[in-house]
């Protein structure tokens, strides 16, 4: 691959707590897209997978609450320590492959306040009420004033349940995705003419040049069209659910890609070895 001398490069344009903007360059489109796909679907995180409901007298049904619990992002910095349940020696779940979270809220009836309309008697059960057995795996909550709402309760109602959070990837279920979205763009000036912008009257009025265009030089009308050119600069932005740092997501995704390619390499080598032995060439 003499085309991409020096190997892929990443330059970080901005880095926030829950997001990162970067340019991936000097590599092929397939590599960039593979990175995107892995970030969305294959970086393992923790999420509530099983809910054992002991008591639920709220207005929401059991399966509805279970679904809502599953969607709560859990901090997963420490996800490498935890095993996939399928790889674990246990039968259902164990501390090696899971984290337990409990939720128990009971709203007592206060007869003094009962008929006072000015007092808001609604109890908002949120991710703050989830008590984790593992300090490293707990609901993401940057802002204590805006936790994730699970269910609203009125006096006399009770919910008591145990959640089992497991390690998984978003290929299986969207709740394990570490990112909410991955923005991806190349060739903002459409120099490669991969796309055909449809216009009615005036391209400049109807279309916007993307923000990423600042990184590139505008089209020089005198320059001839290079039909051999290939995209090699990819503008990406990762927005995480807060379960891990954005740079971690990118790095882990790269590791996974490497592992995959490495695995493939080993398999191929084995194959060739076998073939050589078998056929003698």
């Amino acid at each position: 691959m003499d085309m991409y001398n020096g190997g892929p490069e990443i330059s970080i344009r901005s880095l926030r707590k829950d997001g990162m903007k970067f340019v991936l360059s000097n590599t092929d489109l397939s590599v960039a897209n593979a990175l995107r796909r892995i970030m969305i679907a294959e970086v393992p995180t923790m999420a509530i997978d099983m809910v054992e409901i002991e008591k639920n007298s709220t207005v929401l049904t059991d399966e509805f609450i279970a679904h809502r619990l599953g969607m709560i992002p859990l901090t997963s910095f420490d996800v490498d320590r935890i095993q996939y349940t399928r790889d674990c020696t246990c039968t259902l779940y164990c501390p090696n492959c899971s984290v337990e979270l409990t939720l128990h809220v009971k709203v007592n009836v206060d007869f003094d306040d009962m008929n006072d309309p000015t007092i808001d008697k609604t109890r908002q059960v949120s991710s703050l009420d989830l008590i984790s057995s593992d300090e490293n795996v707990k609901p993401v909550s940057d802002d204590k004033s805006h936790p994730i709402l699970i269910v609203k309760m009125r006096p006399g109602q009770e919910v008591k349940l145990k959640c089992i959070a497991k390690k998984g990837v978003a290929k299986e279920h969207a709740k394990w995705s570490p990112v909410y979205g991955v923005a991806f763009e190349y060739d903002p000036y459409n120099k490669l003419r991969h796309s055909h912008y449809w216009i009615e009257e005036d391209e400049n009025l109807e279309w916007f040049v993307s923000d990423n265009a600042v990184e590139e030089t505008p089209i020089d009308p005198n320059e001839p069209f290079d039909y051999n050119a290939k995209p090699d600069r990819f503008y990406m932005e990762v927005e995480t659910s807060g379960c891990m740092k954005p740079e971690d997501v990118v790095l882990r995704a790269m590791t996974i890609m490497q592992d995959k390619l490495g695995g493939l390499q080993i398999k191929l080598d084995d194959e060739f070895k076998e073939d050589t032995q078998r056929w003698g060439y």
Partner: protein
Amino acid sequence: MPPNATFNTLERERIFKNPSNKAFQTPALQELVAPHIEAFNALTEFGPSSGLLDLAIQDIGSKAVFDTNGGGLGNKLTFWVDELTLNKPSLSDKERHSTTRHVYPTEARERLNTYRGRLEAKLAWRINDGPVVIETQDLGLVPIMVRSNRCNLEGAFPKELIRHHEESEEFGGYFLVNGIEKLIRLLIVPRRNHVIALIRSSFTNRGPTYSNYGTSIRCARPDQTSQTNTVHYLTDGGSMLRFAWRKQEYLVPTMLILKTLIDTSDKEIFDSIMLGDMGNTFLTDRVELMLRSFKAYVLHTREQCLAYLGDKFRVVMNFPEDYTDVEVGEGLLRKIVLVHLKNNRDKFNLLIFMIRKVYALVAGECAPDNPDSPQHQEVLLGGYLYGSIIKEKIEDWLNGVRSMIKQDVRRKVAGLDFLDNHYFLKTLKKTASLQDIGQKMSYFLATGNLISNTGLDLQQATGYTIVAEKLNFYRFLAHFRCIHRGSFFAELKTTTVRKLLPEAWGFLCPPADVSRLPSILASLGVSQTLVPARGQRTVVVQLDGRIVGYCSSEEAKKVAGTLRHYKFSGSHQGAVPLDIELGYVPISQGGQYPGLYIFSTPARMMRPVRYLANGKTDMVGSFEQVYMEIACMDDEIRPGESTHQELSPTSMLSIIANLTPFSDFNQSPRNMYQCQMGKQAMGTPSTAINYRTDNKMYRLQTGQTPIVRPALHDTYGIDGFPNGMNAVVAVISYTGYDMEDAMILNKSSHERGFGYGTIYKSEIIDLTDLRIRGEPVLHHFGLGLDAPRSWREKLDKDGLPCIGVTLGEGDPMCAYIDDTTGKTSVRKYKGMEEGIVDEVRLLGSDLGDTELQKIHIKLRITRAPIIGDKFSSRHGQKGVCSQKWPSVDMPFSESGIQPDVIINPHAFPSRMTIGMFVESLAGKSGALHGIAQDATPFTFNETYTAANYFGEQLKAAGYNYHGNEPMYSGITGEEFKIDIYLGVVYYQRLRHMVSDKYQVRTTGPVHNLTMQPVKGRKRAGGIRFGEMERDSLLAHGVSYLLQDRLMNCSDYSICNVCTKCGSITSPISTHTAGSLSNVREIECRACQSGSGIDQVPLPYVFRYLATELMSMGIKVTLKTQP
């Protein structure tokens, strides 16, 4: 920003938390059902002093019977209903546990009971002229309309409604029969008190000389029952009056009726019909002939005519025996002829008018009126129908009592003594079955069948009531707004009745057959009289079918104009109500019969429009509208001609049609489809789901308020009942799985809860079904010690299922112990899908003094969307989910947005649902700016385009003006050649789901006669491979497949055949004589040997055919070859 750019979330939450005790959040909803409720209230409150029921008993009058004591007629027993009282639903007096006596609708709903109140009659009777005895009689429990003036929730506001477990905006208008919400349909009937000209070929079937010309009038009595009178034109120039009495038709010469009505002369009749138009020889000839031919009857005076009529109708009319012939004749005129008029002179005038009109029709001076046009129609309101049925049942009861007494008199029964009150009361007891009117009304509501001796002047006997299904809120609303054309017309082959006439503009909305805003009047009209000069060459002026005079056409027009002016101002303000209809029909050549027809009666269709003269809101009826100039938009006002203007161009749309966003951009059939589909969407049927016991309820768990909604969305409070979800939609042909109206769903969206739905199903277990009559209660809910462990996993000690337990097919739903055997039995759950027990209701008896015998279990069946489920946007664009594509494979935009739904661009060119594109555009900008977008139709036009309005918004948010975005393939990461239309569209999940429809079978039950697979999904049957399918296989020449389908997979059988005689019926299995072994041998009975027996595969039905033929004496032989 447009006025409703906010979702009002906080305000709605505030009202939700603190429901009002003074006002409704959406008063418009209450108005929607007003016609139903007002009509029911009219039973007891109609006009200033009385209700329809009071008017009904007045009309019934008294019944009399004679005991033939002392020769002659003897003593006269007269009896009548003096007063009817309809009470609010309350507990029975025998009930002794409760402190409050009120019964509320929720109890009937949850206990699967009927919400009903006691009907009581004060029955009065007297002997000869003796003192009147009055006794209160119980007429049973009559179903009461929810939120009517006989309902305990009358006038309740949200806070109280919620306290009684109702919807916060509950509007009622329905009955509760056995826990089911039933509704009396609004029915189209001919306009009352208006003479219409008809040409019907069926008229000639009435007899020889009958022509196909006639004039007809549906006369309404004050109690809202009606009687139709028809004048037939005979080919000999004469005319006959036809009427039906107790389902029997009678024809009487009109001349006879004219002469019985008033003391008149031939000259007066001649003059009245001619009205000075002596040049009209067509008319003179016929009137003369009519008068002349009547001479044959030799009846001269009114008395003679009345006596003649009375004599002929004495038996039919069933009047008291002491009536003279003249009295019977008068009674007939009172009860049958033009019953909307009291005065005989008025009746005479109107009959003359009917004759004039029929002659004008024959002469071609006027055109026949179209009975299918709303101009000649009004609405039969449920309450009025309900009242007329009660009236008829009361009359039946009184007649029953009368014939019972008559029978006693005839049989000279011992104890027959009119002077003894006990005799009369005893007779009443004998007719108790007729007296239970409540039971009859419950039957009517439960079945919709009208059991009637008179037919009530209606065309149909069935289909009067429907279940007000709460499938979703749209459907529930539509039930109350729908007007039924009558089942008679549904069967009609011609499509002329289905034609949408311009007369219907604003009254009937075709998409859902729903009328938009016709406030159907239930108020009484004016009785103001107006007498223009009489006698000139003139047109008629009628008020509610009464001729008030004649005047010139120009004068009539002026009168109409002045009266309209008086509606608002002038000295007569107040005397002319707003809802009066001034139907001025100008003179035309062969058009509608001219005149000024004024209507003030209830049950007419009216709608509000703006009166241009003063800018106030005027009510316009369907009769007058035809001859009015009503402009729609401002630029359509023609000075000097337009008198009115539409309040809004959306006035012509029904509620459901109005809820389609940007419907003005769509091809009209697509809007109709949406009106159908909106009613099938899985949505939020109710906000009080845990107080409902519907058989089946669909619920969308993740409903959202649409970003793009018309103004009326808020007016009707639809936000309380979300019907779908906002979805990011890409219009792109991707992977081919979106071909032919299929759509691709994003798997991640689905996993995050997109379209997640639930079905609630009811199971009712009643142990009294097991009880034998007369025996004590022997079955009790409970789990005995003999119950196996597997039952205990699902059921509690009380024999009832635990809340939250999952039931699969064959699992026990409840257990009961039989006292006779001492054993525990269970009732098994038969559904094929797993259900979760949501609620268990213990249903006691009315008095609450019996043991628990009946339970209601509500099961929850979860239905996450799967491949094969149906979805649709709000523009008639339905599609089936064909794939749940992994999120990484979905295309994405530069900002990383992935669509929830992908639809194919081919769905658009032929269907032209531009509204969906506009919604997509509006939804996208609404989502970006966080505003609710107004989608009221007709707000944009050619100069102020929607594309520009929303395009600018998109531009402001940094997006492409047209709503396109460059997108990338999720699989390769490559940018697409073209940019993709990406936006936010509100999607509905429809209730048609594969889980309810899939049908597969490998082996399974077979029919025991033919041995072929049975049919039907429920029985695990197959799908028929029919003749046409067979033909196609034959045409392809695929004989192996043919054999596989029709033989191997169907009724393959190995059959014994005797190769000697070729019979397949004669080989039988026998014991070889003398053999000790149990081996059976096959032997041909005909050949008496087993040597020729061979086996061949045959379809089993062929063997059946052979035996059938054998039974007819036909032999079937098979020629077999090795």
